[in-house]
């Protein structure tokens, strides 16, 4: 999948005539590729535009501008029939499977629905396919007749995954698939996603805010801030030697599961909060919170530069990336 200059604006309407008085620039010119067979982790805090990006990429909410090419074809150029056919190959896993599952439909019905919609397999064979999907996500086949409310959060997420896999998609967008789950269940779901990727050869775009979890499962990581990409590179490279001051702050803010933190120097904490995407700061969007910001950052947007070596691109959008103190 190739994403080029993706933009998503939401109009702000005011007054009796609902005149448009501005726009929330939720995603504001984002470009990246998701390579066949990889997991790309897209990380950001609330207001970064990461979930909007996910929905725009799948055209669940069509983008305001920019192009999304899936296997070389521009999704915007597809007619409704072609788009539906293409959707077979790209599916989404949601944060809260309870909200995305119809409470009045049995689990088996929910997993079967995409098969019916896309007319996959002979109707008689579909129940068998449902049973095999449920098995694949680690649920006993006899759960097919039960309803979503009878399941725990982790089991519901397994149902959501089975439903997403029903059409045998190659590409899956997972929007915060574990953040609503308990710690001991999170690891189960992460492992399931890893196993499925391996056995089915899936490609993932994983949207998340938990940097350490994203690092565990992603091949590459993209960091978003206020509608823009700040950094993109190999997961190991981005998490171990982050270049952008925002990525560094994010990495520093991840709680370390060690009891000796008081002996460690405390990480420099980011000041303030994410500004409103309705009125993003001029220049580099991160400058009001950046400890290294200069006049240049307040005026000009930084370029998107590749600092990586051959074969290991590491993109950063920061004016001062060459003069920043080396990450320790």
């Amino acid at each position, binding site marked *: 999948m190739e994403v080029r200059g993706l933009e998503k604006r939401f109009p702000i309407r005011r007054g009796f005539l609902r005149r448009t008085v501005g726009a929330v620039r939720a995603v504001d010119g984002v470009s990246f590729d998701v390579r066949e067979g990889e997991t790309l982790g897209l990380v950001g*805090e*609330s207001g970064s535009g990461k979930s909007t990006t996910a929905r725009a990429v799948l055209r669940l909410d069509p983008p305001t501008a920019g192009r999304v090419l899936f296997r070389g074809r521009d999704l915007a150029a597809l007619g409704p029939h072609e788009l539906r056919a293409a959707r077979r190959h790209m599916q989404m896993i949601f944060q809260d499977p309870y909200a995305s599952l119809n409470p009045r439909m049995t689990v088996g019905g929910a997993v079967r629905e995409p098969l019916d919609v896309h007319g996959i397999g002979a109707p008689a064979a579909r129940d068998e396919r449902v049973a095999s999907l449920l098995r694949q996500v680690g649920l006993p086949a006899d759960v097919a007749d039960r309803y979503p409310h009878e399941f*725990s959060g*982790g*089991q519901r997420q397994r149902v959501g995954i089975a439903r997403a896999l029903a059409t045998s998609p190659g590409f899956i967008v997972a929007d915060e698939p574990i953040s609503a789950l*308990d*710690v*001991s*269940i*999170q*690891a*189960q779901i*992460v*492992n399931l996603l*890893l196993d499925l990727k391996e056995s089915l050869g899936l490609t993932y775009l994983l949207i998340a*805010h*938990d*940097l*350490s*979890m994203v*690092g*565990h*499962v992603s091949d590459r990581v993209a960091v978003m801030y206020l509608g823009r990409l700040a950094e993109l590179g190999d*997961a*190991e490279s981005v*998490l*171990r030697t982050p270049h952008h001051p925002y990525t560094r*702050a*994010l*990495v*520093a*803010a*991840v*709680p*370390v*599961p*060690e*009891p*000796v*933190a*008081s002996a*460690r120097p*405390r*990480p420099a*904490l*980011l000041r303030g*909060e*994410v500004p409103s995407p309705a009125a993003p700061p001029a220049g580099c969007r991160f400058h009001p919170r950046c400890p290294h910001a200069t006049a240049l950052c307040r005026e000009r947007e930084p370029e998107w530069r590749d600092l990586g070596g051959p074969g290991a691109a590491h993109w950063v959008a920061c004016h001062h990336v060459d003069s920043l103190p080396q990450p320790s």
Partner: protein
Amino acid sequence: MSLLEVDKLVTSFHTGQGVVRAVRGISWELDEGGALAIVGESGSGKTVGALSVVRLVPEPGRIEGGRVRLGERDLLSLGEAEMRAVRGGEIGMIFQDPMTSLNPVLTIGRQLTEATRLHLGLSRAAAAELAVETLELVRIPRARERLTEHPHQLSGGQRQRVMIAMALACRPSVLIADEPTTALDVTIQAQIVELVRDLRARLGMAVLWITHDLALVAGFVDAVAVMYAGRIVERAPVAALFRSPRHPYTMGLLRSLPRLGDRGRLSSIPGAPPDPREEAAGCSFAPRCPFAVERCRTEVPPEMEVGEGHGSACWRWEALAAETVARA
């Protein structure tokens, strides 16, 4: 003698669908100026246990046994008026969602001065001065101007700070924090943890921190109590808990935490927590436990002393200890 002590506390909910035994006899102590984390997943009883301390268990919950001692007083036998003076006076509380504790129609100043005028008998002017001081303590910029503002005029992180300010208004000797950072972004979460760490040092207050996130509290508290299915399964000084856990659930939790920079599959705990309405004959964790033997399924393990200030409710803690040594 410790400042706050909970002894064999039992709290249950009598619902139409049966009795939910949320807290099944927990005991812990908090020293003056100390910091204790109660760690557990949803449904473990960690929040109900904390609410029982201040006698704010929602209907149809009942405290059915045990003792809660603050200093010399038994909180469970105080009259309602005396208890109100304890809440917001000697014990300050902060919760996950600031909007549930902030009154949207009252100014910040009014909400901050109400408690100090009532509990400390301050004049309007003196209460306003103290309120400004408290807002500065939680690092709210332009504190004096904030007094006339309403909660909706603040950002999420600032509301959380105002809520902490309200909890601190009367300079309590104990701060109870129930998942105060769960809904916040990581960079803001790190700011709040740092703030509470700093306030504890400056005001010398004790902190009881309720959380599902073991990593978050690792560098901050003195001791940790791990709850599972209404009981404390392990209680230890923080370093001992991380280095030599003596309960299989704690071990499983620690192993399932993702670490920044690591990749691949996570170690996970199989299964899911039990239904809180069910009454297991033995250890509640036995169905998920790789070490469980017959005795674990028939007899509830009491807390056993396994080290200095280190208790474990596991029949097989010695076998676990041998296993951790073998691994190392």
